[in-house]
């Protein structure tokens, strides 16, 4: 999923008429000073990061005066909060809160409907409310063809006896607009928590907006890179580069995510970092079940399925090999109708580009388990190119299992590590 920062999400809400507090996002101390010179106090200053729980981690501060605001800005900008560098702040006028609610529209995988989720207990984690007091969370499926009408939203809210008539009207109108945001921007989640009632009406005090990855090609105006799900962290440069492969080309996929971009996990767990690519995520899981106990860890996950073009394989292979930490590369295909001779041509071209002096023979352990349609042709191509004559490459065919691939990699790595005096297993 592609997640927007709070201030970016709020701008989407604003386009459909949902009110947001007066304020501005800033990227430097000077910009921040300019904003606090013009804004009415008290203000709230919020670190713009892609993580929940930032308030408790010091990422949200209130200021009644310029002096307090200055102190907060200096302490937050460029600081690290919850493992993320704070590159921007959102400075907003503090709202006079009468009441807080939770409201979201999301895609429900089990029913395959959009649903609206509402609670009169805003401002706290909705998962906690759903677990502890499920009666306080109200949901409604929305018909994707007819959308959400005003009367339907009000009828849904009318079940909540604590809401007054004026609240019903305001909240019903807001829910319709929120659903329109969800549809217009191809969201997987659009969440306002807390949704705040003030004397001037309803305001989105916070916003979490996640866009469907598969729709990014038609949401070009959004400030997002076409990347695969990276979790609660910004995408890396390599993930952004990999995201461009599938962005305009839907002939098969080249998914790529860095699981341990800086090698921290490998170091902590004393595992050997390797590059990894597979055809089929099921085969990859089985392979990793075999590989990790042998002391290796894929610092990236890549899945090139759905019969991608050889040019996609070429590009993703180059990206995987560009990770400086890797000490080997493992490719495993599942048995499928993917045309593996195309896959082979992509990998061969990448290896030849990366290793021009050896005509594509790699300098780190490489194991390719090539099993499936056109697998014999694929293996023949590697032989014809002379790449299989390399010291550090093994190619396994259709008779091999995922365990065989992992063991072959283990044995090859041991030889390579011994020869190169690399410390490790």
């Amino acid at each position, binding site marked *: 999923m592609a997640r927007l920062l709070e201030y970016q999400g709020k701008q989407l809400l604003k386009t459909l008429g949902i009110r947001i507090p007066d304020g501005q996002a800033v990227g430097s101390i000077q910009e921040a000073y300019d904003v606090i010179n013009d804004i009415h106090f008290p203000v709230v200053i919020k670190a713009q990061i892609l993580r929940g729980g930032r308030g408790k981690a010091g990422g949200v501060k209130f200021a009644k005066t310029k002096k307090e605001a200055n102190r907060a800005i200096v302490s937050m900008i460029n600081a690290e909060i919850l493992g993320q560098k704070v590159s921007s702040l959102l400075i907003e006028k503090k709202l006079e809160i009468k009441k807080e609610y939770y409201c979201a529209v999301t895609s429900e995988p089990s029913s395959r409907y959009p649903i609206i989720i509402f609670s009169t207990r805003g401002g706290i984690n909705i998962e906690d409310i759903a677990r502890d007091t499920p009666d306080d969370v109200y949901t409604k499926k929305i018909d994707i063809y007819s959308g959400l009408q005003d009367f339907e939203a009000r009828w849904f809210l009318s079940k909540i006896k604590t809401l007054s008539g004026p609240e019903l009207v305001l909240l019903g109108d807001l829910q319709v607009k929120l659903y329109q945001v969800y549809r217009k921007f191809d969201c997987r989640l659009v969440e306002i928590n807390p949704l705040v009632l003030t004397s001037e009406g309803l305001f989105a005090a916070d916003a979490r907006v996640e866009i469907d990855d598969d729709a990014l090609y038609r949401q070009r105006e959004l400030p997002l890179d076409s990347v695969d799900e990276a979790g609660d962290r910004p995408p890396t440069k390599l993930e*952004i580069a990999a995201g461009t492969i599938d962005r305009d080309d839907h002939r098969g996929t080249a998914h790529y995510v860095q699981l341990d971009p800086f090698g921290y996990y490998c170091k902590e767990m004393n595992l050997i970092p390797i590059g990894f690519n597979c055809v089929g995520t099921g085969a990859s899981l089985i392979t990793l079940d075999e590989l990790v106990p042998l002391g290796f860890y894929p610092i990236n996950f890549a899945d090139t399925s759905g019969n991608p*073009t*050889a040019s996609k394989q070429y590009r993703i292979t180059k990206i995987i090999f560009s990770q*400086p930490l890797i000490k080997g590369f493992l490719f495993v295909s599942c048995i499928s109708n993917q045309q593996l001779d195309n896959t082979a041509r992509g990998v061969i*071209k990448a290896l030849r580009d990366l290793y021009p002096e050896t005509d594509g023979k790699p*300098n780190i352990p490489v194991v390719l388990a090539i099993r499936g349609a056109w697998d014999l042709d694929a293996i023949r191509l590697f032989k014809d190119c002379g790449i299989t004559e390399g010291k550090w490459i093994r190619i396994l065919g259709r008779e091999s299992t995922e365990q065989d691939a992992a063991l072959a990699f283990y044995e090859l790595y041991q030889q390579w590590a011994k020869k190169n005096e690399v410390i490790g297993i």
Partner: protein
Amino acid sequence: MSLITFELYANGMISIDTSQCNKCSSKACALTCQNQYIDGPIVIEKGKPALKYTLDEIKQGACVECLGCELSCLLDGLGVIKINLPLPELDEYLESIDEEPVYRRKFK
């Protein structure tokens, strides 16, 4: 030099220097191209590679980017086909990192 060049759907370029192709006995590029699950763009006319589709048709996806022409020309022909598949975001990344990627390092 006779040069055929055509752009690919996924941002890239194939160029064929046909000045030598009369000497090629295999015509492997066209054989590979026509052996794909759809008919590819490269055919042989008057002993040399030629394009079966317009440049616009190829740019729209008539070439399935199997990269077979380049490799077969290298293996069985005269090595006159070059495919350029840029990835500028990767180049930017490589310029930004301090540590060399493994393929630029020396191992035994």
